[in-house]
């Protein structure tokens, strides 16, 4: 089977189960693709030898009844992997080899998958274009010179280019959904607390969530099922019964109420985004869903709130990088304090330093009430907007991003214009809700655009169902040509 790697995860799983292909052949096919796709720069580390060993081991045993039996997977380099370098896209962790495995990756391996490599990302997941990575820009397979989105840009690029059958990312303000939208793939940010944060390099702990990035909604439900679950080691992990999302996937959405928030429009938003939204509404309506106009009045304050809360938490989380226990240490400095200052100055990139400074400032004596406390209050209002709306609707439909993939370098000189990319994704993180980005169409340049479905807390099944029905009726086709190999 020459084109096995262009298939969806669920199709590949069928081929493995029916022994049409061995795990070893599958793994070799992905390795070949990865070696031919160096131009995309989506991998920081590859673990081919280990993957081939694991594939052989799988082929020699009879049990293939697990969710991800025999599947090689590359994951974002923000997940700690035992004995495999984990960089978070940063120079300061360039030599870090964890002695433990993150809970979500361990869950994937316990379900029969194994590691293929570690994927590039924005430094400490701070970015919307993968341009802040110490390991360089990642290229979007939909077109040369285009960013793949961020911060899970290596993940979206590798997935869209058939370098991994599915992957996982993390989403603090849109870092799964925006890159999924930019590459024509499916990305889900789960409810805060559904997937364990243990062993994930921390950015903003009250916002960070890991989630799947896949080619189809069915694949997304399989991956979510495999990676989620209660974990004692994460104090904010939700203790609830494990769900079987893929088995319960159902495309009957008749009678569901879909909220359309009037605030999800921005100045100068291309008409194409509005048209896409209209198309999405029509598809859901034709399937028997009811569209209901709703208002989320504090939407415009979500980004300013995020740019207080996230940097504040980051400045605290990133205080651990001091050059003493792990990571990079500067050789310059005459005493301990200077060693710290030089280590952090040389080890962190500009965007990370900028956010640490913002965070340190908003938490500093005399400014805490004006910024951090204020942001916590506005966060309450944003959450209340959603709570009120979900009294009336089952899910909310919005565009995923205000534009398609932009050119490398286009927004690097203006941090605020870069931040505005996350305007439709950030409110969901502040409210801790699940949201699914679905490929929905192409703009006039032929670039993918996504729509977002927001659900109630822990209502992943419902947005997956709506997404499943949408996908069947949308007719989206990826038009990626393998120009890079």
């Amino acid at each position, binding site marked *: 089977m020459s084109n096995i790697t262009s298939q969806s995860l669920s199709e590949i799983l069928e081929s493995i189960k029916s022994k049409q292909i061995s795990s070893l052949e599958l793994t070799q096919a992905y390795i070949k693709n990865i070696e031919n796709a160096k131009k995309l720069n989506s991998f920081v580390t590859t673990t081919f030898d280990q993957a081939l060993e694991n594939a052989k081991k799988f082929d020699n045993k009879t049990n293939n009844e697990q969710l991800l039996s025999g599947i090689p997977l590359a994951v974002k380099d923000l997940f700690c992997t035992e004995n495999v370098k984990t960089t978070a896209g940063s120079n300061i962790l360039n030599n870090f*080899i964890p002695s433990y495995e993150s809970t979500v990756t361990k869950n994937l391996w316990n379900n029969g998958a194994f590691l293929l490599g570690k994927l590039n990302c924005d430094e400490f997941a701070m970015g919307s274009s993968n341009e802040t990575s110490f390991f360089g820009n990642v290229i979007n397979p939909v077109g040369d010179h285009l960013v793949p989105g961020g911060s899970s840009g290596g993940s979206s690029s590798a997935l869209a280019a058939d370098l991994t059958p599915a992957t996982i990312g993390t989403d603090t303000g849109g870092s799964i959904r925006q890159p999924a939208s930019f590459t024509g793939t499916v990305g889900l940010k789960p409810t805060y607390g559904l997937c364990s944060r243990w062993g994930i390099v921390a950015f903003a702990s009250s916002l960070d969530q890991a989630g799947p990035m896949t080619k189809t909604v069915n694949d997304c439900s399989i991956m979510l099922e495999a990676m989620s679950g209660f974990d004692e080691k994460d104090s904010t992990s939700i203790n609830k019964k494990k769900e079987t999302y893929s088995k319960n996937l159902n495309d009957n959405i008749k009678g569901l109420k879909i909220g359309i928030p009037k605030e999800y429009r921005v100045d100068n938003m291309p008409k194409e985004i509005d048209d896409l939204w209209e198309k999405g509404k029509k598809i859901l309506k034709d399937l028997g869903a009811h569209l209901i106009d709703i208002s989320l009045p504090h939407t415009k*304050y979500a980004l*300013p709130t995020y740019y207080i809360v996230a940097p504040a938490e980051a400045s605290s989380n990133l205080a651990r990088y001091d050059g003493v226990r792990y990571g990079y240490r500067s050789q310059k400095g005459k005493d301990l304090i200077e060693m710290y*200052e030089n280590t952090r100055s040389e080890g962190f990139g500009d965007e990370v330093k900028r956010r640490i400074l*913002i965070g340190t400032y908003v938490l500093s004596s005399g400014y805490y009430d004006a910024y951090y406390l204020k942001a916590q209050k506005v966060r309450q209002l944003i959450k209340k907007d959603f709570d009120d709306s979900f009294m009336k609707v089952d899910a909310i439909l919005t565009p995923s991003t205000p534009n398609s993939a932009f050119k490398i370098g286009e927004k690097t000189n203006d941090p605020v214009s870069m931040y505005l990319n996350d305007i439709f994704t950030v409110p969901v993180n502040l409210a801790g809700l699940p949201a699914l980005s679905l490929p929905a169409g192409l703009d006039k340049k032929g670039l993918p655009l996504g729509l977002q479905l927001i659900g109630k807390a822990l209502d992943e099944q419902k947005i997956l169902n709506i997404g499943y029905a949408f996908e069947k009726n949308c007719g989206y086709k990826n038009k990626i040509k393998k120009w890079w190999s």
Partner: protein
Amino acid sequence: MSLDKEKIKHVAKLARISVDEAKVDSLTKDLNSIFKFIEQLNELNTDKVEPLTSILNQSLRSRKDEISDGKIREKILKNSPKKNDEFFVVPKVVE
């Protein structure tokens, strides 16, 4: 409010990040544009709003205070940029 260079140097000191003198100007410009954006929040009256401190409808769990692992000194020291057999090594702190 606007941030001047001196304030930024002070915050950098608090964050233990040395700032390259040549980069202070562009950093000042960037941070001021970000704070101008952030300060949109001042339009909102939040006097009667409770701050949101946890997004979960559950309080943090507590667990028994007991040892669940240990004897992993080698693993802990493994990634240290400078160490001896038992300790992390840092520049001299006490004369």
